[in-house]
């Protein structure tokens, strides 16, 4: 609905958007990614939260200077038309890659766990179409969907108690028994699960209460950290170190531990409901790509949305071999993400230089 620059993101929507864009496919393997740290991995999200918080400040600082412009417009203003557009294309590619990463990871999990004698075409097609439909509703629908997804999936945290009952919480001791190399490795592997807040650079102009935006984003980020810590502590209690290092989807096994009297193997339901988390991530990124194209074209057309959707579909279903895809999703996307979260610092410097030299403002 809200196609124009309407300030439509109320605080609660901002929090929901931040949380659900960050939580996505990577949480499924979080304990696996960080397993280098052994039983100490449960506090790695806190470290990542600190890094995220540090990178949010320059982002907000940049956005405050351009309160009505998305990152794409800022690029064009600061870097000039052609250089700015070049960078914009990279950012758009990054957004599409992230949408694909979420979809691909999820669809592969589906294929291994729930639909194990089917090809991924139909599930992926369905996922892509729903993603398309939601994104077509604009940022407000995306944000509202994120908040709803939070309600639909948040209760699953309660299921953690089943894993918790089984094992020993004492596994978390000794508290800091690890070395720097493992910590850095774990952070690098699992930082993909923290990406998602950088879309802030794009939706900042749509936020209603811009002055409190920083606070709301931080609430979102630290809620995510809290969720991750809870999940990881449960994993630590439930799994042995070997299991965390060797199980690709520890969450899947945690779900399997749940046994209800009327339903067993709740992982089918849980992984099914995970589609809400996947959609809330991929739609945000798809919206980001679409906004990028719109800002560059300076008008709104349906193909601005269709194009990234189709690309993200054919990335997964197209001619790319699975290994190449994995390389793109696990490395290219994450390193582009690192670039993007540090990029605002450079832009701020540029802004300072320009305004210092120019109007002297």
């Amino acid at each position: 609905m809200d196609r124009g620059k309407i300030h439509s993101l109320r605080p609660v929507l901002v929090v929901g958007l931040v949380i659900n864009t960050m939580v996505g496919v990577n949480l499924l393997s979080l304990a696996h990614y960080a397993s280098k740290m052994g039983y100490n991995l449960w506090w790695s999200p806190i470290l990542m939260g600190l890094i995220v918080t540090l990178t949010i400040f320059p982002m907000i600082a940049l956005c405050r200077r351009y309160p009505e412009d998305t990152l794409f417009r800022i690029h064009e203003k600061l870097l000039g038309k052609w250089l700015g557009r070049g960078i914009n294309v990279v950012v758009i590619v990054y957004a599409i890659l992230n949408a694909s990463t979420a979809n691909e990871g999820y669809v592969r999990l589906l294929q291994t766990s729930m639909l194990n004698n089917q090809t991924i075409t139909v599930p992926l097609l369905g996922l892509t179409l729903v993603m398309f439909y939601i994104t077509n509703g604009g940022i407000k629908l995306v944000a509202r969907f994120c908040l709803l997804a939070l309600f639909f999936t948040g209760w699953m945290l309660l299921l953690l108690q089943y894993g918790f009952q089984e094992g020993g919480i004492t596994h978390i001791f000794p508290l800091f028994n690890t070395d720097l190399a493992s910590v850095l490795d774990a952070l690098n592997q699992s930082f993909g699960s923290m990406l998602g807040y950088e879309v802030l650079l794009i939706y900042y102009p749509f936020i209603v209460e811009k002055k409190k935006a920083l606070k709301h984003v931080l609430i979102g980020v630290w809620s995510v950290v809290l969720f991750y810590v809870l999940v990881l502590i449960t994993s630590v209690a439930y799994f042995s170190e070997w299991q965390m290092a060797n199980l690709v989807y520890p969450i899947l096994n945690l779900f399997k531990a749940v046994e209800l009297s009327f339903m067993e193997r709740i992982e089918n339901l849980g992984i099914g409901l995970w589609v809400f988390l996947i959609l809330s991530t991929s739609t945000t990124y798809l919206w980001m790509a679409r906004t990028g194209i719109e800002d560059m074209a300076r008008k709104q057309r349906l193909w601005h949305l269709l194009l990234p959707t189709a690309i993200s579909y054919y990335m997964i279903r197209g001619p790319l071999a699975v290994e190449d895809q994995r390389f793109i999703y696990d490395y290219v996307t994450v390193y582009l993400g690192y670039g993007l979260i540090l990029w605002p610092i450079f832009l701020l410097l540029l802004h300072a230089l320009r305004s210092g030299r120019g109007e002297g403002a």
Partner: protein
Amino acid sequence: MRPTDWWREQVTKVAEARRHEQPSGRGERITPHMVKEQLANVDDLSSLSLTINEEEVHVFFLDTMVDLTQVYETVFLPLQRSDGKDPLRVLPYAQPCQSDDMGRLMNNLLRGHTILFFLDRELILHVNTFQVEHRSITKSESEATVLGPQDSFVEMLEINLSMLRRRLTTPNLKILAYTIGTETKNRVAVLYLENIANDENVERVKTRIQNVEYQGFVGMPVLKQMLEDKPYSPFPQFGLTGRPDNVTAALLDGRIIIMLNGSPDAAICPASFLEMFSSPEDFYNRWSTASLLRMIRFFGLFVTILLTSSYVSVLTFHPEMLPPALLTILSQSRSQVPFPPVIEVLFIELVIEVLREAGIRMPTKIGQTIGIVGGIVIGTASVQAGLASNILIVLVSISALLSFVPPNFLMSNAIRLVRYGFILMAGLMGMYGQMLMLAFLFAHLLNLTSLGTPCMAPGVPRQWTDLLNGLVRAPMKFIVYRNRMSRAKRKQTRPIGEE
């Protein structure tokens, strides 16, 4: 461009074109002969040529729309006794017609007015003598409650409005009247409380009604569909009720009511999705009972859309989800069924749907028989013949019962419709298909708006106090603020500080 906008544009174009075509019948003086000519072949037209006090008076009225005694008492008798005085003085309710506006004259005549031509005085009068038989006020059939007021709207707009006036004794209750429908000339009333309802919303309703161009409306649901934001959605976006107490509550909450002559329903707008699951009885019951019932209704929504489709996906894709005891029962009952679960479920669901439809069309007594015959005979026989498993019959019955729980009839129909989507998706992709459909359904619901306000408002709350009258119904003491959905001018329901 949104389809509704596009539609409106088309409609305005047509309307303007028509306005140019008909330069209206003005200019010429109307004679009784012209009236007769226009209403040739209209059998119920009474055309009398009388001489009252040595003055020739032509009288027209429709037999079917007036009461003859009343015409005699209110029109002829005073005229006869008037001794040639000015008829306008004698007949207090009479109004002069413009002598050249045929259209309006026809309108009045067709509405049950009596038209008087005083040829000598060159005067045309019309008197409202409308008097027809109508259905008396009865209990509401479709929204019955145990407690609370029992009256419901009838097909006469005047009576309906009077029922509301009786409840809202305030000058702030405004009633705007419109005439729509090129052939039927339906009267539409838009009601709102001026001091509470949002002006912007009122304007929106006004423009939408004025832009409606259609030959005629046989009932409020038709008009409602043309006024709603997203006409293609299976879900209603305006509330529809036949109960004056519902309407009063809505008015007090700052909503706008649209009523149509000839239809015993009123549309409430804007309406939120959750309100479709609340009944006026929620406020007549104690808050705890009401909250429980509301939660059951909402929970029923999820159960009814997920129950039978889960049967399909569990049996086809995820047999590991069954606990051992259930597995034994299910595989025993399924062992003779020759169809795959999708077909089995679709078959039984359709049978239930057909039974429901047949039950509605039949007279009450036969309807009951059909229900029993269908339910027991078809159910038992199909299980024994091995066409369906008995567990499925149980599940389908539960989900059918739950689908009738929402007090809003249109909502319960919509839910039954989307259930088929869930069953097909479950047959295609199992639990994932169901969840994907659920995501799609809720994305669609989030995208719905009612007069521009999102329908899922209390679900994704616009203000936290909405939750007190959403999934639960808090004690009256806590319901201080009006629902944010209606964007009311005065936010509190009682004068605390603000006023």
